[in-house]
């Protein structure tokens, strides 16, 4: 029951939830939540493959790096969102269309 | 997941027969069942003991503060008021459980539970004695810090969920305080990890000897400073004494848990006191040699274990006493002072310690100051 497939299924579900969160939610922070979910899904895959395939420690290291960088990214993203809120008074994603073509 | 209480107990006669019995009857998952049972019993024992210690903590605090202020303190309930905490507990239970309007119900219910889970989660790794630590995770320290940060979140959620400005402010202050003080704590713990060469509490404690000169606190000047940084940080972590801004009575009534009544408040209060004990335990384990008994009397025998337990509890309670004394001596810090203290003083010092410890390790090959001064290189086998 605890085979590679189950882990992959879990990570896929997480991935899909992350994508839906990004697409469906209109609040920027919700989008960031979705992003975190996606990153976690990928980290899970790495660790799962290390366990079931080649047991090299690199999988762990890569997921560690994902966690570290995701944290840094979350911090910067939220700082930007804060500044965006200070300037625009809103965190609604559809108001951030200044880079429109 | 290596040497847990289960593996320790399995070494003794009666448990061994139980193990064989279970393996014959349940085949492959026999040992896991055995482990489960042992864990179940162990957890129940540790939780009850710790709760009583938490309760006694309240009693002790009131007694010591009274003593310091030349007054009697509780002496009605039980001899010398020792059972006062039970009285409080019953009071809490009897109190009406009020849920204010427009409260975020989900978070309102979850916050106290989160606080308790956070605290009880840490009990799994506290090294009471070489045998009786529940599980000596080899990532013990990191696990402990992770789980204890749940408390911070719980405080914030409590403040936020109770839908009132004061508790909200208390929650924000509490959360930010806990998060910012987590950094110096982690750094000073890292210094010790650097010295002992392992993340698990067992390794760290075994790296220290029974005698004070073998403890990490006196190992080198950097760990000495590291001990005090850790102690100050843990004070802030548990919202104690000079850092008890979140439930600063004078300003925010009682901070984040003003709206909580009855058992929810009990959870928060209990969580707080147990966390103080846990934090003192950790400090003792890291710096004061944990359950190490001089003349290495400790060992696998029951008596050895009891002696180790005694050593651990004596060191932790000493620190506990010291924490309580601080509460009634130092005035409360302002929020900006709190923050500057953390970011502009503690963190740089902690970083300096970490680097200093690293350089010391490299320079003197990990030998402690004592060994360097009094014993020529060959005589002492060096801590490391």
């Amino acid at each position, binding site marked *: 029951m*605890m085979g590679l497939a189950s882990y992959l299924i879990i990570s896929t579900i*997480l991935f899909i939830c992350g994508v839906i969160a990004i697409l469906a939610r209109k609040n920027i922070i919700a989008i960031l939540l979705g992003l*975190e979910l996606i990153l976690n899904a990928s980290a899970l895959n790495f*660790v799962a493959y*290390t366990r079931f395939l080649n047991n090299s420690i690199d999988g762990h290291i890569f997921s560690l790096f994902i966690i570290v960088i995701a*944290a840094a990214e979350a911090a910067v993203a939220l*700082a930007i969102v804060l500044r965006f809120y200070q300037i625009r008074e809103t965190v609604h994603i559809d108001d951030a269309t200044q880079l429109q073509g | 997941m290596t040497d847990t209480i289960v593996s320790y107990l399995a070494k003794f006669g009666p448990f061994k027969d139980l193990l064989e019995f279970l393996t014959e009857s349940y085949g492959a998952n026999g040992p896991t069942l055995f482990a489960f049972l042992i864990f179940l019993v162990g957890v129940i024992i540790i939780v009850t003991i710790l709760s009583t210690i938490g309760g006694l903590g309240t009693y002790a605090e009131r007694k010591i503060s009274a003593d310091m202020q030349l007054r009697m303190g509780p002496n009605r309930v039980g001899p010398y008021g020792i059972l006062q905490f039970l009285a409080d507990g019953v009071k809490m239970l009897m109190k009406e459980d009020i849920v204010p309007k427009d409260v975020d119900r989900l978070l309102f219910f979850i916050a106290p539970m989160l606080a308790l889970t956070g605290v009880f989660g840490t009990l799994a790794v506290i090294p009471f004695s070489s045998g009786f630590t529940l599980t000596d995770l080899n*990532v013990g320290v990191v696990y402990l810090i992770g789980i204890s940060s749940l408390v911070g979140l719980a405080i914030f959620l409590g403040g936020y969920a109770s839908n009132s400005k004061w508790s909200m402010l208390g929650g924000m202050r509490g959360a930010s305080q806990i998060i910012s003080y987590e950094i110096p704590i982690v750094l000073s713990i890292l210094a010790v990890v650097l010295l002992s060469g392992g993340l698990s509490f067992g390794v760290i404690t075994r790296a220290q000897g029974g005698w004070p000169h073998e403890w990490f606190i006196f190992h080198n000047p950097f760990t000495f400073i590291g001990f005090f940084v850790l102690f100050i940080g843990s004070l802030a972590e548990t919202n104690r004494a000079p850092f008890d801004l979140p439930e600063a009575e004078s300003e925010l009534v009682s901070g984040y848990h003003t709206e909580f009544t009855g058992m929810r408040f009990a959870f928060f209060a209990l969580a707080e006191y147990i966390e103080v004990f846990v934090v003192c335990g950790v400090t003792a384990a890291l710096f004061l040699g944990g359950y190490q008994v001089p003349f290495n009397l400790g060992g696998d025998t029951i008596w050895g274990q009891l002696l180790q337990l005694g050593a651990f509890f004596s060191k932790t309670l000493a620190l506990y006493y010291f924490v309580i004394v601080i509460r009634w001596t130092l005035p409360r810090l302002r929020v900006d002072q709190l923050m500057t203290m953390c970011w502009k003083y503690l963190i740089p010092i902690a970083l300096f310690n970490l680097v200093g410890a690293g350089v010391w390790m490299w320079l003197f090959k990990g030998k402690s100051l004592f060994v360097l001064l009094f014993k020529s290189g060959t005589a002492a086998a060096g801590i490391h």
Partner: protein
Amino acid sequence: MFDLTLFFISAVLTVIGAIMVITTKDLMHACIYLLASFLGMAGLYLTLGADFVAAIQLLVYVGGVVILMVFAVMLTGGPHAQKQNKFGMIKTALMGNIRTYTIGGLTAVVVLLMMVKLYISIFKNYTAGELPNYLPTVERIGKSLITDHVLAFEISSVLLLGALIGAAIIARPRKNRIN
């Protein structure tokens, strides 16, 4: 048996948490469910024998990111940020026009195909070999971090420094607030 229970609990926790993150209206609840799914993830890591990664997951995500999110929510107008934007238009999630739906449908189909293709290949030729027993991974991770992946390690430290300073500067409340 013990592993199985741990796996079952953390899997349920993760999946339920993830799904609840999407469906809850309240942003704060979303953060808490996210916290739940992160805890579940830590449990999953434990079942996979990655104890150090689980600990770091706990430390970083549970200890840091979630609180960060909660703070962010508080600082940008609370969990019930108004649905409508400056012009008073209530923007519902599903607003959009033909173009977005077509592309959304197209991506759904493509993703589905991708998933199917992946899983077929996994089920077809992945045979669960004898799994190695659990080993303490901290030493191995530490050693390989310093030897093989030292470059990534150093660069990530620089990156973290950058992020630290950057976030602090960006989020600093500016004197001349433009309202």
